[in-house]
């Protein structure tokens, strides 16, 4: 087929037929007889639990599988009528762009302009053509001000946009994105999704987007493909997907759909606007108002963490920057606190300062005893046996606290993602516990990156147990009398609504809101749950609360 025909979109952007694939030395297949087609200009959402084959399918569509990763492959993959199994990723780059989850390893040049220009330079485009293409894609993604910046000075969100620009600069017919919002705050995440939608509508770029937080992007999608154990479990429009997930895999359901399902309303909504329209149509547009109940502090105990006028300055390149600016905060035993805010607001810095990794330049922070788990649990795992990481009684006690004492002889690499995270937490807890009692503060920094909902539910259960300092059901301990304050820095609003009783919102290094979770997460727009945005009722943030409000049971 001629290049002109491909440009005009005569061929499907992606056609996969009977694709099966297994990674080298793998005992099971990552993809099993997958067939699907993405039409030119279509926006397709790829849903599914962790390890269901989403990433592998995206890699097959851009040629990395099998050309880069090797392995055994059967079937056919065609991208804009190019045979992806016969054509290498470099040649396919003219027809398909790929954006992986970690933006750090997706930039290979020193400056932003050079990074975006690289694919054009590699295929030998003339300098004038390259200059125009770079300028246009920078304007489309609103990053012309970044062009002269060094790539190692960019934030995660900026890096993600630059990587997207490098993927789009060849004007591909298809763009593949693997959880691009997992490291972004709600504002940047929403911006990216709607940017993709705009590119999709204005440039006609077909989009295949793999994502866990479906509530963010379902409304933007034309179609949903749900993967189950390497095979296509569902392929249809978003509204039908919600019905399917409700019946077959509720973990893939969105909060608004769960709200409607619990309230007995149909059809299940694909987004906030859809939900509001349905509510208006059914005459329950104004559910009874639930008075926001001020939570009186039930714990008059002494704080386990207290910061007063805390200023922290970090040298992030050419010059030092104030990351925290006069933070006053107290955490009390047993509190479950979500620390939220945009990328760069100072969440991680606050936790790291509490753990002693940074020194304040002014003010003070006093902590009873703290165990901090940073963003990459793998960084804590350096030995080949769980028992070697956590020797002795203290190690065993920490393992019991996270429910992993049965895995003492296992290689950490053989644990699931959630278990590895719990093991890393146990490593931070070991020796900081008084008997079976966890330390005064347990802090988790962005623990839900790349997690599906099932794993998030397990994490919520663990946080609640730590805060209450109670044992796992099969264990005998649980005589603790004092709860642990659990503070979690997170971008995930829905996760925060599941575990937190208090939310502290940071903005540019200062506390801009601090209060009961239901109040904070229902009082904004970006930092609000989907249910809060649908119902717009103070204090109503979860599907259960929303359903109760719709049924008129609360109040």
């Amino acid at each position, binding site marked *: 087929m001629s290049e002109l025909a491909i440009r005009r979109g005569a061929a499907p952007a992606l056609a996969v037929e009977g694709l099966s694939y297994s990674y080298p030395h793998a005992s099971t297949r990552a993809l099993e007889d997958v067939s699907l087609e993405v039409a030119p200009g279509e926006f397709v959402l790829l849903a599914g639990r962790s390890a269901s084959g989403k990433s592998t399918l995206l890699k097959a569509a851009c040629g990395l599988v099998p050309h880069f990763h090797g392995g055994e492959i059967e079937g056919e993959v065609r991208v804009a009528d190019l045979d992806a199994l016969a054509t290498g990723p470099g*040649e396919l780059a003219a027809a398909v762009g790929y954006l992986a989850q970690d933006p750090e390893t997706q930039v290979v040049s020193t400056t932003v302009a050079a990074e975006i220009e690289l694919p054009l330079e590699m295929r030998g485009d003339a300098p004038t053509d390259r200059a125009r293409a770079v300028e246009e894609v920078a304007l489309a993604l609103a990053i012309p001000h970044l062009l002269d910046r060094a790539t190692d000075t960019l934030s995660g969100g900026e890096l993600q946009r630059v990587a997207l620009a490098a993927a789009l600069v060849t004007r591909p017919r298809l763009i593949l994105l693997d959880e691009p919002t997992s490291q972004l705050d709600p504002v940047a995440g929403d911006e990216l999704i709607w940017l993709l939608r705009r590119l999709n509508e204005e440039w006609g770029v077909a989009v295949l987007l793999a994502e866990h937080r479906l509530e963010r992007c379902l409304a933007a999608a034309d179609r949903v493909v749900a993967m189950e154990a390497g095979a296509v479990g569902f392929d249809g429009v978003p509204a039908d997907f919600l019905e399917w997930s409700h019946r077959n895999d509720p973990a893939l359901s969105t909060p608004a759909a769960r709200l409607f399902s619990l309230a007995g309303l149909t059809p299940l909504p694909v987004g906030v606007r859809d939900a509001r329209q349905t509510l208006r149509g059914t005459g329950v547009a104004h559910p009874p108002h639930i008075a926001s109940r001020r939570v009186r502090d039930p714990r008059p105990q002494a704080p386990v963490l207290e910061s007063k006028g805390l200023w922290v300055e970090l040298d992030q390149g050419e010059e030092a920057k104030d990351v925290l600016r006069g933070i006053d905060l107290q955490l009390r035993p047993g509190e479950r606190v979500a620390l939220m805010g945009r990328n760069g607001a100072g969440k991680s810095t606050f936790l790291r300062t509490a753990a002693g990794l940074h020194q304040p330049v*002014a003010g003070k922070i006093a902590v009873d005893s703290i165990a901090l788990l940073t963003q990459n649990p793998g960084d804590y795992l350096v030995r080949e046996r769980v028992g070697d990481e956590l020797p002795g009684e203290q190690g065993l006690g920490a393992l019991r606290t996270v429910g992993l004492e049965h895995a003492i002889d296992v290689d950490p690499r053989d644990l699931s993602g959630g278990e590895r995270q719990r093991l890393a937490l146990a490593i931070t807890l*070991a020796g900081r516990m008084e008997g079976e009692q966890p330390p005064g503060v347990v802090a988790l920094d962005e623990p839900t990156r790349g997690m599906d909902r099932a794993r998030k539910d397990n994490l919520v259960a663990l946080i609640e147990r730590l805060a209450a300092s109670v044992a796992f059901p099969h264990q005998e301990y649980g005589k603790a009398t004092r709860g642990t304050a659990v503070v979690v820095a997170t971008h995930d609003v829905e996760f925060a609504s599941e575990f937190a009783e208090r939310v502290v919102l940071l903005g540019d290094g200062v506390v801009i809101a601090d209060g009961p979770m239901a109040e904070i997460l229902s009082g904004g727009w970006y930092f609000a749950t989907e249910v809060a945005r649908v119902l717009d009722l103070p204090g109503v943030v979860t599907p259960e609360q929303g359903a109760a409000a719709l049924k008129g049971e609360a109040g």
Partner: protein
Amino acid sequence: MRSPFAYVPRRGPLQLASPGAAVAYLGAIVAVAFLYSNPLVLVAAGAAATLAGLLAGARRAVRAGLRLGLSLALLMVVVNALVTSRGETVLARLGDWPLLGRVDVTLEAIVAGLSYGLVAAASIVAFAVYSACVDPDRVLRALRPLAGRSALTATLVSRLVPVAAADAGRLRDAAALRGPGAAAVGKGPLARRLLAGSLDRAVDVAATLELRGYSLDAPRARNRRARSRYDRRFYAVAALVLVTAIAGKFLGADDFQTYPSIEIGLGPATITMAAVVLLSGLAPLSHGPKSRTANADGPNSPTWRDKSARRQRGGDGSARRRVRRREVARV
């Protein structure tokens, strides 16, 4: 935290010049340092490299280069003083030392060590300025048609170095955050973990290079960049410095002897040579209106906003540090 030697994009003449011109210019200064041993010329070469770096806006790189270079120079002075007993002016007799034997510290050995040290210091500062001012991507891409595999390897390594440094920082933090009851992280397991992580990262970076089309045949003719208007200036200065250096060698500008006694030539040839080399440091001077720094001081850069925000707040970190010091002093 970024390395002080990391390339910072700016709109100065040295940064805008083609890699060939910048390499020729800074290479000429380094060549003088290696060709000459006269301390006056070597000091002039070091000063030229420093001046070039400061005019190009690479203050951090120059500072770090000077720190490293002068430390190395000091080490060379000490080592040479201990291992060389030649020279007529004995300053100290330190007796017999294991391995070194009889150690007599002479003024001549110290000055000879200083001469070697100045060569090292001038070269290190010049390399620091090169590192901070010459875009490595442009160098690698210029090399790609000539040596594709080497350029690919260098690209991979140049990207992996900052990624591995970030990984090492994270691993250090994780080691510091381990509970006292967890097994201590030895250097061995930590190094193994870093290596394993780096290999994973290398695969990801290599995949990105593959997707960007690095495996395609290197384009040649259509890929040439337009030359910078500053290229001629740097080539001319480089040629002038090299020609003067070679001529100076024949005219006795490098008149310098350390053993058996010190003789430093300070004749017209040496002074002219030192002046030419020193003045070559002015080559990165910008003529036009003060160029806007693209990265560090641009209106969209975080640094610029921070400064603005600080002005609005009426204070900066150093002010608070002073306050804190006063508080500590009171305590």
